[in-house]
């Protein structure tokens, strides 16, 4: 056990060191710009953004407690620097762990999660650098009204595929949170007559969904209803690295 602990301890140490360096650099940007341009902060304008800052700090706290257990130690330290968690890093890590056939929460899962988030971060950076270099060529394409809906619908496209895999494999655990979330979002949409609320609501509903799922799973587990981890024997394209299809 000792080498495992030692590696784990070092992951936290290196994660914190890199995290602090990255955070200080990110925070320095507006202040460096102040020095370069000899500008000052417009505190009136800043105050008008205070409520947004507070809201997103709360969301940040909630995301920390929600995503940290999913990503493992290395994945967490890296993911919370490189961002784009719910729309890229978490689904990417989840997909890679599932495909590698590793048991979630183990050291193997930690390694697969860290590798997937690291590669995803590097690939994202490369694509964004290429995009920035070629921005004058790409802008007409990205601003094309016909193509715009494709870029607006990444999340539904991403979670449609994932939902089939995970809900079909764990349908007992999925029923309660899925029904609840559908009700909350559909009712809120009809109540307001728009979809504007959904964007704000999702930040709150991810942890709510997680808590509801944990509580309902715990009850079912205690009652002995989750015989095979709540799994249904459904064929979905997930096979582990040993060539054995997960059932």
């Amino acid at each position, binding site marked *: 056990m000792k080498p495992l602990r030692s590696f784990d301890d070092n992951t*936290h140490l290196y994660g914190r060191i890199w995290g602090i360096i*990255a*955070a200080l650099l*990110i*925070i320095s*940007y*507006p202040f460096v*710009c102040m020095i*370069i341009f000899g*500008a000052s*902060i417009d505190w009136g*304008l800043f105050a008008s953004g205070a409520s*947004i800052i507070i809201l*997103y700090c709360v969301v*940040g706290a909630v995301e920390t407690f*929600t995503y940290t257990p999913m990503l*493992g130690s290395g994945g967490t*330290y890296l993911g919370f620097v*490189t*961002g784009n968690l719910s*729309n*890229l890093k978490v689904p*990417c890590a*989840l997909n890679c762990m599932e*495909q590698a056939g590793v048991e979630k*929460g183990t*050291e*193997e899962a930690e*390694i697969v999660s*860290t590798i997937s988030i690291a*590669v*995803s*971060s590097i690939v994202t950076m490369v694509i*964004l650098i290429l995009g920035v270099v070629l921005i004058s060529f790409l*802008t007409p394409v990205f*601003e094309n009204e016909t193509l715009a*809906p*494709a870029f607006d619908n*990444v999340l*539904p*496209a991403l*979670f*449609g*595929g994932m939902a089939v*895999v*995970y809900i079909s494999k764990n349908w007992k655990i*999925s029923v309660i949170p*899925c029904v609840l979330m559908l009700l909350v*979002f559909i009712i809120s*949409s009809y109540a307001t007559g*728009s979809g504007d609320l959904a964007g704000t609501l999702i930040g709150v509903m*991810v942890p*709510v969904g*997680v808590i509801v*799922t*944990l509580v309902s*799973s715990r009850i079912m*587990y205690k009652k002995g209803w989750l015989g095979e*981890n709540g799994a249904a024997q459904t064929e979905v*394209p997930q096979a582990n690295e040993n060539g054995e299809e997960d059932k």
Partner: protein
Amino acid sequence: MILQLNAAQFDKNAPVLYVIVGIILAVVVAQAVFFLVRAYRRGIKIGMSKQVLNKTMVRAGVFTVAPAIAILVGIVALSQKLGIPLPWLRLSVIGSFSYETIAANIFKGNVTDATAYVTVALVMTCGMLVSMFLPLITGKKIQRGLMKMRSKDKKWGEIFMTALFLGMISAFLGYVFGGVGEGGSGWIPVLVFFVSAIVMALCGLLLKVTKWRWINDYALPFCIIVGMASAVPITMLLG
């Protein structure tokens, strides 16, 4: 100071801003490379096969392409107002397109002076302070708590992890339906969701019939691309 300009010389696309952003992002990439190499070596050491680790890298890379292009679209969208360097930085590190857009909109119209620029940049940065520092404080405690829980009851530990993921997926399932009250256009993400889901089910069927295991590697990225592409004709019909 050699790089010092003045407020009158403000340019939201000034070369010096690209240099600063480049330096910050180089450090972030270095962190990613550091953790990648470390995890890879550890994987080999504990007996994981190189094939698993290499395939994980390929899968992660392929998976990332479509969502990363969508992030690039976000940079383009914000670049009118803020220039390129600031959105490039903000969407390459912890943050989100929705937050950066809301934060940018505290200033009406396109940012043309240095004071507004640094203030908007500060608001964007401050909103992510908790996300940047809290994981550094709580990460170890949370992970240790999970290890303890797994050692006490392994089966519940597995269910716990599965429940975490499903909680997130259920929230995004609801989110997809969050615009149906609008009528026609609100159903676009719902239909895109179902197109992606159907494609995934068909991939599963194809895998079962043909036993082509490579389908497994590309099924989800393929679903994302087909789903995104389907949004175009769906929008023409319903938008």
